[in-house]
């Protein structure tokens, strides 16, 4: 056993109605790569927030290098050599890289010296960065570099990384892992939070698994299979989604030479996108965040109209139609952002059900709402998709992310559309709910509908998709059959290798 760096003893934290952490104890050794595993809501975030001083534990103690450690705020944690890279980046778009780094440091040197040190450290660890660029102009991978470099400049003894690879291409993940191994060899301990089991097995030498706020095991992840780890996390046996082989049907949705200039100064413009979606086909569209996914969804859902012929549904031009007209014709969409885009946060589930289903389900007649039918419809979704809520009168914002996602996807699937477009269908959703949503999407395809899944989760796409394409800076690669694609090839597609020859047998 290595020398312990940080010891947690019986940490407990309760929020009204939830015991987020219940009596958690474990040790992190000097230079150790320690994984923290668990589903969403298992208490990982609360635990690291306590280590980083953002949350005070109700009970329990921490010991850092043999001395008592109870940080009242993050600056105290930073002074003690504890640094953190956040899952949702804690960056400021309108400030430049050097300013962003300075904001995360205790005693930053003058900006000119800091810029020099940023260059030095970032090259030393293989993460090149230009300190004068605005963070808003950087890619997701570069933004993460800013966060990491910010931590490294303070020479941390413990680096906490919260889901660091969810926004990276496979090649960027490689670079990150190399950096982390280098750090570990230099004696920096790393607490690595993820639910990507393969990564953890490749990287970490010890793993602590949380479930429902409790520690269920500490083990060596290299000695367990990914399946064993997953079952420890979930506490039940997982079944991968079923997908019987099937022939390709008629063309349902066609997109032709679609270009679109983004309205958002930090957005991505779409450039000349063309693809065809067939009945019964699941088309997976990969890409690192911010490469045009949001814009593509807006164009397909009808929120941003285009030339009529550029989007065609069953041969009819629909590019100029808005979302309601498209729903009527059989194309529905579920955007990534649940609160505020897919659902109105301050309206009840019943009202949210009405908002997208009014037409196809005939919930409103000559301007009057049929509340009884709407309520029945909302209850139907809740029952069918196992949405955990006291009832349909609950406000959308009161649901947890996973439950609301089940409701939103369920609502669209229940409309029995011909084509459904989803963006990040299982983002922030726990494993059980995610596999449920994926199965529901596959069932739709089996019934003959066309499904477009835009996602950053490669495992998800490989599990679901029949055909595969990637977005890079607003351009889309040719669609290829998903079967037989290697992770390397996918990485190249995501990285922008547009001229790759399409594999034979696309028409299969």
């Amino acid at each position: 056993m290595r020398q312990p760096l940080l010891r947690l003893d019986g940490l407990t934290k309760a929020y009204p109605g939830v015991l987020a952490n219940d009596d958690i104890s474990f040790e992190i050794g000097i230079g150790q790569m320690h994984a923290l595993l668990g589903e969403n809501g298992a208490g990982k975030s609360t635990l690291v927030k306590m280590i980083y001083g953002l949350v005070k534990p109700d009970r329990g103690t921490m010991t850092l290098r043999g001395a008592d450690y109870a940080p009242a705020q993050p600056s105290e944690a930073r002074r003690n050599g504890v640094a953190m890279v956040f899952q949702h980046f804690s960056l400021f778009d309108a400030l430049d890289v050097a300013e962003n780094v300075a904001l995360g440091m205790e005693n930053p040197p003058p900006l000119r010296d800091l810029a020099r040190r940023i260059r030095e450290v970032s090259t030393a660890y293989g993460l090149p960065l230009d300190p004068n660029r605005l963070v808003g102009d950087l890619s997701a991978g570069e933004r993460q570099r800013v966060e990491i470099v910010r931590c490294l400049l303070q020479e941390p003894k413990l680096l906490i990384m919260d889901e660091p690879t969810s926004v990276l291409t496979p090649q960027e993940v490689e670079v990150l892992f190399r950096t982390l191994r280098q750090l570990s060899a230099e004696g920096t301990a790393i607490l690595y939070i993820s639910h990507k089991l393969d990564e953890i097995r490749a990287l970490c030498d010890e793993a602590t698994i949380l479930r429902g706020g409790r520690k269920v095991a500490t083990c060596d992840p290299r000695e367990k299979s990914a399946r064993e780890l997953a079952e420890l996390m979930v506490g039940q046996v997982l079944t991968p989604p079923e997908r019987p082989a099937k022939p390709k049907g008629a063309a349902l949705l066609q997109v032709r030479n679609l270009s679109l200039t983004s309205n958002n100064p930090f957005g991505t413009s779409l450039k000349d996108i063309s693809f065809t979606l067939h009945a019964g086909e699941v088309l997976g569209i990969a890409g690192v965040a911010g490469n045009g996914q949001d814009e593509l969804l807006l164009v397909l859902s009808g929120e941003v109209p285009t030339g009529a012929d550029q989007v065609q549904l069953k041969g009819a031009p629909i590019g100029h139609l808005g979302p309601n007209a498209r729903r009527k014709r059989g194309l529905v969409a579920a955007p990534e952002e649940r609160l505020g885009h897919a659902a109105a946060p301050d309206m009840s589930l019943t009202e949210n059900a009405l908002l997208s289903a009014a037409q196809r389900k005939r919930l409103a007649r000559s301007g009057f709402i049929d509340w009884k039918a709407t309520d029945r419809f909302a209850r139907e979704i809740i029952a069918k998709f196992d949405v955990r809520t006291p009832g349909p009168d609950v406000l959308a914002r009161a649901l947890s992310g996973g439950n609301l996602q089940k409701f939103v996807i369920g609502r669209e699937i229940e409309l029995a559309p011909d084509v459904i477009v989803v963006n990040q269908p299982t983002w922030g959703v726990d494993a059980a709910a995610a596999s449920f949503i994926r199965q529901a999407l596959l069932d739709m395809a089996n019934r003959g509908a066309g499904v477009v899944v835009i996602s950053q989760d490669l495992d998800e796409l490989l599990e679901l998709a029949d055909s595969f394409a990637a977005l890079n800076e607003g351009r889309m690669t040719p669609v290829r059959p998903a079967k037989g694609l290697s992770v390397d090839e996918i990485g190249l597609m995501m990285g922008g290798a547009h001229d790759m020859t399409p594999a034979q047998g696309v028409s299969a």
Partner: protein
Amino acid sequence: MILGSINPAVLMAALMVAATPILLAAIGELVVEKAGVLNLGVEGMMIMGACLGFIVAVNTGSPVLGFVGAACAGMALSLLFALLTQALMTNQVASGLALTLFGLGLTALLGQRYVGITPPRTPKLDLGPLSEIPFLGRALFSHDIVVYLTIALVAAVWWFLNYSRAGMILRAVGENHDAAHALGYHVRRVRVFAIMFGGACAGLGGAYLSLIRVPQWTEGMTVGAGWIALALVVFASWRPWRALAGAYLFGGVVVLQLNLQAAGVKIPVEYLSMSPYLITIFVLVLISSGKARGSLNAPGSLNRPFHASD
């Protein structure tokens, strides 16, 4: 038309005086908005400063104490706003409007016995030979000290926002309060300080009206200066030096309007008095079209309520 009767040196001098109150209020509001808070109560805080500053100056006989009192009065009213929006999480727009109405009403009551009185005179700053320079001396170097202190304040705010760590934290809080909170900065504390600074500046701007520019107390005497200051912040796209330029532009419009009237030009003055707002609308359109670089300078968390999640 007898435009020849307008003396450019006098016009320039009058313009600097006319610009000072709106510039004071605007530079305060600029800092408030850079911290991510939209305080529409500028007009209310200005009139509080105008009224309280007048009362203090008349009773003590000291214009300096009057200005101090005005800053305190503006700050007191802004603290009410801070309490409402930062502690009780009320809507910023509604609270700001309420602040304006409250300020106007309260000062009408407090100032009743002071109508028609002349306040103690604020001496002009003696700049010696500088004010003897032909034209420039009359236009630039014959003012009271507040005019010059205001320009110094603009410089100080510019330096603070761009070159000091505290200023960087303030911008960070206004740009993305969730990220600032995650890094361990005290979002509310920063915002309350910014709001107080904005209140003090607005109060000083009001006192400049009642003690120097007019100088007299009448009910509702700010007549929209606070709104012009708010428009000015947007017009300046949250940059201090541009706020100075904009204040002279808007101040110039006000002065020109008086001079043109005096010169007997037959343009309805209403066209000129609405022009600052028209220009601001134009700038807003430019910003939201996303073409102008200015859209990036708008604080990202402006007017968004901050709930600290655990």
